[in-house]
């Protein structure tokens, strides 16, 4: 039987097997966008975004059944907060509650860690928040985050647009999220209403998931639905990727003390097991 530490590493690896999910935050809104996969032509598309309460929801990458367990747990927590205090569950309380559950699995024998990563998005008393949850039990807040296959490409895009997010409108934010998501596509794929799912929550809007026909208007915001990471951007991207790796080591060396959301620190979760994601994003280049 492999050691628990190894299992946790495998679990984080499982996230990368899952299709990509990205999240972005402005001062007023949080947007989630995810790529749905269907295992075979005849099958249905996998559910990528789960509503937890009127003010929060999650996007997942990895084992969907594990995500169901975690999101149902979050729903219960949110509901009991409503029941006992008539208070919407705060995002930080929510993510820490699943972090504690996940952490126990990394320490106790006989079980296995959750094989899923979550982007937890929500709007509470202290504003809009986006958290990344990993099977290790680590949770970090971000202004932009991406998990799943080829997510590095989305991160690279978001790092470039970082300054625009805080003051972006809801529509702009969705456009950014979809552009980031588009960057994770393989060459022969494109976003469409069947494989794209978008969710928004914010100051004036309850957590709403857009699927199928409902996602069409958002897709129309993009000029092209195919991956446009063409040769013009190639060299610049490669450079940035390299820079990130250096940044990662620095960030993880600091012991992830940063409380302020920073997209740059976001990569720390990938450090150590970088190669597969890297090679995937390399594949994209012709």
């Amino acid at each position, binding site marked *: 039987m492999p050691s628990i530490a190894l299992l946790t590493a495998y679990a984080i690896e499982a996230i990368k097997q899952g299709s990509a999910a990205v999240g972005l935050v402005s001062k007023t809104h949080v947007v989630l966008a995810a790529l749905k996969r269907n295992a075979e032509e005849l099958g249905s598309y996998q559910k990528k975004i789960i509503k937890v309460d009127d003010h929060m929801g999650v996007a997942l990458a990895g084992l969907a059944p594990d995500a169901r367990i975690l999101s149902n747990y979050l729903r219960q927590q949110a509901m009991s907060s409503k029941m006992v*205090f008539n208070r919407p569950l705060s995002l*930080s309380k929510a993510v820490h509650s699943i972090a504690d559950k996940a952490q126990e699995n990394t320490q106790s024998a006989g079980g296995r860690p959750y094989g899923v990563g979550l982007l937890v998005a929500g709007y509470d*008393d202290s504003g809009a928040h986006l958290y990344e949850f990993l099977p290790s039990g680590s949770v970090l807040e971000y202004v932009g985050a991406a998990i799943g296959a080829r997510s590095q490409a989305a991160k690279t895009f978001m790092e470039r647009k970082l300054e625009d997010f805080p003051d972006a409108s809801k529509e702009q934010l969705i456009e950014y999220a979809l552009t980031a998501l588009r960057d994770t596509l393989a060459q022969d794929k494109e976003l469409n209403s069947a494989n794209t799912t978008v969710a928004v929550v914010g100051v004036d809007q309850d957590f709403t998931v857009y699927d199928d026909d409902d996602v069409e208007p958002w897709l129309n915001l993009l000029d092209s639905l195919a991956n446009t990471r063409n040769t013009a951007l190639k060299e610049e991207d490669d450079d940035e990727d390299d820079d990130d790796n250096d940044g990662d080591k620095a960030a993880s060396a600091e012991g992830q003390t940063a409380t302020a959301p920073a997209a740059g620190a976001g990569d720390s979760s990938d450090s150590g097991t970088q190669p597969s994601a890297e090679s995937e994003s390399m594949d994209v280049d012709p």
Partner: protein
Amino acid sequence: MNHDPFHWGRPSADTYGEYNYNIAHASNADRSTSTNSEFPRMHTQQPMITGTSVIAIKYNDGIVMAADHMGSFGSLMKLDDLQRIIPVGKSAAVGISGDISDFQYLERLLDDLEIEDSYDMESDNLKADYLSEYLTRVMYNRRSKMNPLWNAIIVAGFDGKGELVLKHVDLLGVSYSSPTLATGFGNHLAIPLLRKKVDSEEDVKKLSKEDAIQTVKDCMKVLFYRDARSWNKYSLCVIEKSTQSIEIEKDVAVEGMRWDFAQHITGYGIPQL
């Protein structure tokens, strides 16, 4: 006195005869038993040491609340320096009447809540509306177990938007809000006087802070005159919306009383406070 740890404090059976279970209103009181294990688990059937009325009124920029400092054991004045209005977090004050041991239990619950809340919250998140909901749930759950906390509670403070919250919760888990609230005897003696000043939210706008404080002071005097289980020292809690402040003043004394023979008091029998 019996010094056995399980019977500590009871009169020794040798001197005073068998312990009388009737004292505790136990349902097996008629059974002649002295073994401790057969003593039934007891729920509160009646309050023991009690605190009397809490009263509160809204004014144009806040809330004034008051409760006296006495804990009575039947007609005995058991405690004379008991603060029954307690601050909870930065946005709420809670006034509690009824059983004092249950009050102290609630005090501990609220303390725990405050500590728990300060662990992972950057800002004060224990708003008055959350608190009143929590207390309503606690009271309702306990009544549903047929083991109530024998109290009536008034929660006053601010919600997340800084708006005023004034709620009453009782031992059955019934909660309601109104611009004037009172528990216990206050419901009969103070509410008519308070409603004379404020009977609706419109009236609230017309009442100044000074007038509200004076009204509450007058009510505390009337309560001291007429409620035999009240005391002339009380806490006065003034909540101000514009400054988001909650101040609790202790040891406020009832002033301007007349205890002369009735015939010597001018105006006795005509309206006076």
